[in-house]
């Protein structure tokens, strides 16, 4: 299996080159290849997880063995946390490309779309697999440059403006991250994450480490769009084509932003109280302010985009609380519960927010508008879109029996158990406002008035491939609830949490000691 690790990067990357060369000549080449590519990567990672073998695996590019315990090559590492992220990335990529088969016919330049899509996913897979700080940065750039282009794919005024903002702020993020990576390299003389861990553990220059930590939080915070670094997100996520919005909201901000923050702060830096508080505080800020911004929106995709900020807040407070408990020397089981809640919410959010963006895309596909005021009565005309969006809305609002209920429950219970009563109360209040804003979406899009207006326009259910993706994701919204069942949690979610908590294991694996 360990020889298969680079496959996650190579296959999509190769596919993107193939599509850009052959795609224009053979009709339907791009969509077929990209769907197959993501299906195959999804199957590979699923076999890894289902096999029950949670040992981490290292792939040394070029076969460069460490010399005297000092790693000299670029290492890729697949551990349960990376595997967990890979499932989200490739699963969502698969469903989004299936959806795009019908959806992207709206646009011209189909082959560029799939080319960019494959590059983006190759970069994301690289980010979560990389065990090398600079390599991680490179993969990150591959991802975001592809996504700049994808956001601007409509090439209208609005899309270009959004993409421009995204590029400027993304450029700031790049500068910050590169600066921090440079600082760390200057200080430790190495780029291998495990090696850095070893050197940082024996250093006592807190000032410098904290400085680079903060710069990293700001840089990856920009990628993860947490407050106050969220400025680009509402524009970019609402202007992109819907499958791309689903990828950006469901995957990119998690894999390129949160994953790296969690990975570095658990497995590279030592967890300190100040940083934990800081991370939890910006998580709370995102959670609360994001939802207030969302509820006032009338542009459907912008509403969803602000909710992404808010829901990322839940993930961050879940994990942040875990960090605070660890930093305090508290109960590890409780920290594990909080982190489980955070990661559970992360995968849930990928599914339901992806689905919501696909629903928004379906409505836009038929109606040509994102304005909630111009919709209404779609319940009769688009029953599948309506049903799936109800499932997703209930999931994001935390209504049983959908998955969001359980992850929010775990986060709230963990907050109360750890005596963060204020956080628990805020989580509940934000959940209520989330419910209110999704009731608004349901009301104005699907009910509220008659569907007479569309009688002549031929508004009907979307084509097969779009429906298929939405249906699968709606079923996933229900099925992910099963992650609460202990036997399934132990084999799927818990290893990811343990991989974060057991920082020694990561370290040892990467160094191959």
């Amino acid at each position: 299996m360990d020889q298969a690790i680079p496959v996650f990067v190579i296959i999509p990357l190769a596919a993107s080159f193939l599509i850009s060369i052959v795609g224009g000549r053979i009709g339907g080449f791009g969509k077929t290849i990209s769907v197959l590519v993501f299906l195959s990567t999804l199957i590979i990672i699923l076999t890894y997880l289902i096999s029950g073998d949670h040992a981490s695996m290292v792939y040394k590019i070029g076969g460069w063995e460490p010399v005297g315990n000092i790693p000299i090559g670029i290492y890729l590492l697949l551990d349960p946390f990376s595997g967990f992220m890979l499932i989200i990335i490739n699963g969502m990529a698969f469903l989004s490309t299936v959806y795009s088969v019908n959806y992207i016919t709206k646009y011209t330049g189909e082959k560029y779309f799939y080319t960019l899509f494959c590059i983006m996913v190759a970069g994301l897979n690289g980010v979560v697999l990389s065990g090398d700080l600079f390599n991680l940065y490179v993969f990150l750039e591959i991802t975001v440059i592809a996504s700049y282009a994808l956001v601007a794919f409509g090439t209208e005024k609005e899309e270009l403006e959004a993409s421009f903002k995204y590029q400027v702020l993304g450029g700031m993020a790049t500068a910050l991250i590169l600066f921090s990576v440079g600082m760390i390299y200057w200080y430790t003389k190495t780029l291998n994450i495990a090696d850095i861990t070893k050197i940082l553990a024996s250093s006592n220059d807190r000032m410098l480490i904290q400085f680079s930590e903060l710069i990293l939080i700001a840089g990856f915070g920009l990628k993860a769009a947490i407050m106050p670094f969220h400025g680009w997100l509402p524009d970019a996520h609402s202007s992109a084509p819907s499958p791309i919005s689903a990828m950006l909201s469901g995957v990119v901000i998690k894999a390129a932003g949160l994953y790296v923050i969690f990975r570095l702060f658990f497995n590279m830096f030592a967890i300190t109280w100040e940083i934990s508080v800081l991370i939890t505080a910006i998580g709370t800020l995102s959670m609360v302010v994001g939802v207030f911004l969302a509820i006032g929106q009338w542009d459907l995709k912008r509403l969803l985009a602000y909710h992404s900020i808010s829901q990322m807040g839940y993930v961050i407070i879940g994990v942040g609380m875990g960090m605070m408990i660890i930093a305090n020397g508290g109960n590890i089981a409780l920290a594990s519960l909080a982190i489980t809640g955070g990661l559970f919410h992360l995968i849930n959010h990928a599914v339901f927010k992806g689905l919501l963006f696909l629903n928004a895309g379906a409505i836009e596909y038929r109606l040509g508008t994102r304005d909630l005021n111009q919709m209404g009565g779609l319940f009769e005309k688009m029953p599948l879109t309506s049903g799936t969006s109800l499932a997703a809305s209930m999931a994001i609002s935390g209504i049983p029996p959908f998955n969001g209920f359980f992850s929010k429950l775990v986060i709230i219970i963990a907050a109360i158990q750890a005596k963060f009563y204020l956080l628990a109360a805020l989580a509940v209040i934000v959940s209520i406002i989330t419910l209110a804003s999704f009731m608004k979406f349901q009301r104005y899009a699907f009910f509220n008035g008659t569907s007479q207006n569309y009688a002549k326009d031929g508004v009907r259910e979307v084509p097969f491939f779009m429906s298929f993706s939405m249906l699968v994701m709606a079923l996933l919204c229900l099925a992910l609830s099963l992650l609460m069942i202990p036997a399934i949690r132990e084999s799927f979610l818990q290893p990811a949490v343990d991989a974060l908590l057991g920082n020694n294991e990561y370290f040892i694996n990467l160094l191959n000691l």
Partner: protein
Amino acid sequence: MNLIITYLEIIILLPVIAGVILFFLPEKYRKIKSLAALAVSLMVLYYTVKLYFSGGAPGQINLIETGFLNWLGTSYLSGSSGNFFMLNLDNLARFILLLVAFFSVLILLYSYVYMDRKNALRNYYSLILLTLWASVCTVLSDSLFMFIFFWGFLGLTLYKLIKGHDEESSAAAKKTFIMIGASDGIMILGIGILWKITGHFNISELTVRTSDAIRFCAFLALLIGSFTKAGAFPFHTWVPDFAKNAPAPSSAYLPASLDKLLGIYFLTRICNDIFILSGWIRLVILILGGLTIIIAVMMALIQHNYKKLLGYHAVSQVGYMVTGIGLGSVLGLVGGLFHMVNHALYKSGLFLASGCIESKTGTDKLEKLGGLSRQMPITFICSLIFALSISGVPPLNGFASKWIIYQGIIDFGKGTGMANHLWIVWLSMAVIGSALTLASFIKFISGIFLGRSRTGLKKVKEVSWMMWTPMLILALICTGFGIFASKWIIPALFEPVTGSVTFIGVWDSSFISLLIAVSIILGISFYLIFSMGRFRTDESFIGGETNRRDVGFEPTSFYETIRNFGILKPLYGWAERKYFDIYDVSKIITLKISHLFSAAHNGILSNLAFWVLAGLIFMFIFLLI
């Protein structure tokens, strides 16, 4: 014991399996779906009856140990603490189960005809069965986590049972679900706190004194949940809107019967099983109960829409139950629970009657109706019985339960404590509320059934037998419960739940009923013997003007006096502008904050870049301090 497990398996699994299957059947087999749902609910009823009479000590059943969840061969849940899947099968739970199943049967019987039309609610039967399932599981769960799961799911089915076809009804659906969902979220907080401070989350294991602030918060959180579900002040505002816009069977099923049963069931649990209440909390509960009675009935008085009127009464009556249970004595508990049952009986009856009227006349405005008593005699008689019953006229059941609550309040006055000394206040609120209920039901009955027949309503006919049978059953039960209250009903149904009751003073409902029957018979015989029937009817004299046929004296207009009465006038004005509606007030506040934040998000790139730097600088400052 094994027999009980079998019963439970059927009661729990049958509705959910049938509900999911019906969900995937196409809508054109509506008749088949309806009959299938009816058959399922009848089976559930049969087994709940068997369960109720199966005896056996009340106790907890662990789903994992009993092999309930082991049907895949091995239990995937064995790793978790068994307490998560604990069922509680005491007499209260069995009793509520029986009622839940009974109302499901009635509503499904009624829906066979009512829902058989074009653009009726989609997946109605599946939703009713899922509601039945969730309610059964809610009542049975001992573990609070299982409880909140099913409790929350009920909110979703409630939302789906309104058809959001126009602006008003979709707004009502939205409001309903937001309020219910919000209360569920708050309940999770309460449950979490209980688990934190006691280490338990099973109802049977919890006994908490409301001594300090954190325990008080837990109590309050759970109280909000039960109040919102049952529809008590100040979390009641979804009920009238729902009642106005939802199809009649939906209103009869959820807000009128099941939500009351569950809300009051949970109130009983938190007041009696989970918490030991202090005097101050009793005071709060009694104040809220009293306010619920008065405020809702005052709002009911001025309604012109009979469904909304019924909705406000569905709130007002909750006040009695809350008051009864808040008293904390056996008498109060019996009164509260008995009133809960009675209310479910007559209020679902009234909603069903309103459904009959609406389906036959096509309007829900009192002004447009009148004189239907001749055309719809059975509906009229049933509605009259329900109306008299809700107004607390002896010998009907509403009187019996209110009477027990009054006794409970008087008995409560003997205690020492702030709440006890104020017993006269609670009593007068309850009595005045009852009188005002009567006043508003005079409007309901006379507005719809009495008075001059309207020209547009000449062709109205009685509804089909499948629609009036449930009403008739309910009316008979209302009468029967009233007449035999003290003799059979209380000892047979309620004493197993609450323990034995001693009434203060002499009260024998059957004897009173006999007296009333005798007096009515006497009256009729006088009427016949002295030939009082020979009177002359003539046109009303209105100053020589010709009496036009289309002029009527709408009963609703008499109630304008109340609306314009001194101090009430501004209060009603504010109420109509939604100043007292907790939903609208919080909505305004939320949107204000939202606009505040939105104003900062003008999308100018330099601002966005500035925030990034500001955030970075702030983080540096934070770390330096």
